[in-house]
């Protein structure tokens, strides 16, 4: 058994978002419903997209952090599934957005299941908030235990402060500036403008980024993703079965990474460890990758991934990302939906769904017939990358990654 055997044998057959009449784009600040409802909507939408009866689902993989979601048993039950052969409830966040996909694919590859549902569902703004990560008891003269006794006591709470350390060290060591992050932010937003799902759709300039208020130096507001209520789901099956379903399959070529980033320094991403092996497992070269959707809770994260994959050297992403290279018609289109920062924060899972759409050629945009895969490539309306065949999706800090191919 080898990575070569696994390569392209499983596929993503359908994708779904927790859309509703109140929130047609799915992503919102206040879903008004419980997390099970979000998960059910997304799962049923993914089945409809694939042309699959939800009762055919016989396995599920989910991830959650701070117990903010609904486990597989509840969701499978809500879908009326009676023949469950596999389930996994991962405890983690953005580190599992890519891993969840290849874990499900392995269950299919080994013949344990036929159709595995993978989802991330959360009321991340109206319910359990990531911004309060590490906030411990909250305030007052109270005490905190665990790791927080060494961190929160100094005022450390929330994702921006936790990850700001990485960004600051990267900036100080390599001469990268907030102005460089601004260029990344502007490119992402220019894609979000053409994404009806995106929460942030007003065009921005480099100056807007620089003038946006400071959240946690080095992060300005426009460097940060936002807490979101949403669910995203997809269906994984064998490539053979996927071909018999409604949509063009997206093949899972390779996946690697255990949801951790054991790197020597915090400015490193784990792609320095797994990047070369991932390419080898998928049998692709860096130049073959047409779309890059890296986990962008903050602007610097995908920039550091671009360097650690080898598109440029450490500290050079500041130049690499300029001049249109990461735009829709550039050498390496990134955050083609606006990323987590603009579309919304489904803990990275929406970046996987976006990669699927780009490879199918049916990216949801302002083109009149995008649903039929008819794109104008008029960049005021269209955010479909031309002829996208290979996509790289990376979870937070390179803790796991997948390569997907057009089927």
């Amino acid at each position, binding site marked *: 058994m080898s990575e070569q055997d696994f390569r392209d044998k499983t596929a993503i057959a359908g994708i779904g978002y927790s859309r509703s009449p109140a929130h047609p784009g799915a992503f919102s600040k206040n879903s008004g419903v419980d997390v099970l409802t979000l998960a059910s909507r997304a799962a049923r939408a993914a089945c409809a997209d694939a042309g699959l009866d939800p009762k055919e689902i016989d396995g599920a993989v989910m991830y959650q952090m701070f117990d903010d979601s609904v486990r597989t048993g509840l969701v499978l039950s809500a879908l009326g599934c009676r023949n469950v052969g596999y389930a996994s409830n991962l405890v983690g966040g953005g580190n599992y957005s890519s891993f969840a996909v290849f874990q499900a694919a392995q269950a299919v590859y080994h013949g344990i299941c036929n159709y595995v549902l993978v989802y991330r569902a959360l009321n991340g703004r109206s319910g359990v*908030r990531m*911004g*309060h*990560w590490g*906030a*411990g*008891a*909250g*305030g*007052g*003269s*109270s*005490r*905190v*235990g665990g*790791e*927080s*006794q*060494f*961190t*929160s*006591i*100094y*005022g*450390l*709470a*929330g994702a*921006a*402060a936790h990850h*700001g*350390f*990485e960004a*600051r*060290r990267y900036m*100080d*060591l390599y001469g990268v500036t907030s102005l460089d992050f601004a260029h990344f932010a502007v490119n992402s937003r220019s894609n979000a403008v053409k994404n009806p799902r995106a929460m942030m759709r007003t065009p921005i300039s480099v100056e807007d980024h620089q003038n946006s*208020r*400071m*959240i*946690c*130096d*080095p992060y300005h507001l426009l460097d940060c993703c936002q807490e979101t209520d949403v669910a995203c789901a997809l269906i994984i099956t064998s490539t053979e079965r996927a071909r018999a379903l409604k949509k063009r399959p997206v093949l899972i070529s390779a996946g690697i990474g255990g949801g951790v980033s054991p790197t*020597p320094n*915090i400015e490193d991403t784990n792609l320095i460890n797994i990047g070369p092996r991932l390419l080898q497992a998928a049998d692709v070269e860096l130049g073959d990758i047409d779309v890059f959707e890296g986990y962008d809770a903050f602007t610097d994260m995908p920039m550091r991934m671009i360097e650690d994959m080898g598109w440029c050297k450490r500290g050079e992403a500041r130049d690499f990302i300029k001049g249109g290279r990461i735009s829709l018609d550039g050498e390496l289109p990134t955050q083609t939906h606006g990323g987590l920062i603009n579309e919304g924060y489904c803990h990275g899972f929406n970046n996987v769904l976006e990669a699927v759409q780009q490879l199918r050629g049916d990216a949801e945009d302002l083109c009149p017939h995008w649903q039929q895969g008819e794109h104008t490539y008029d960049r005021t309306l269209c955010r479909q990358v031309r002829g996208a065949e290979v996509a790289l999706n990376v979870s937070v800090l390179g803790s796991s990654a997948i390569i997907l191919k057009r089927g």
Partner: protein
Amino acid sequence: MTTHEYAYLLPQPDALTQPFWDAAKRHDLVLQECGECGKLRHPPTSVCSECGSESFAWRKLGGRGRLYSYVIVHQTALPNWRQSVPYNIVQVALDEAPEIRLCGNVIDFDDSKLKVGLPLVAVFDDVTPEDTIIRWRVAAVPAEV
């Protein structure tokens, strides 16, 4: 200032971390040291990642380090810190164990002059009669940063 009056969060030690905070109260910086291979570790854990040994001792360190990284918080979910923004939080790489990074705050320094690599020295801040937490002071400010 009494514990009741201190506005910020305080450590809640457990069996593993109590010696660290007891030492801080004596104005010592100590770290767990593996009883077999001597590897230093932090935060405290029950096993050594190098050799798997469950025996350990506490070793006193010199309290000097370098600024590994820092952030300046302008918006926080911690209600009682809102009155203090903007404030810095730092990670310090210890001179005697550079792979170990301690979290803290740099005091008595202009935040706009913070720079990765600045030499720091531990300050034992007796924030309540029961609690001493470790903060940091810039050891020697270079002529021009």
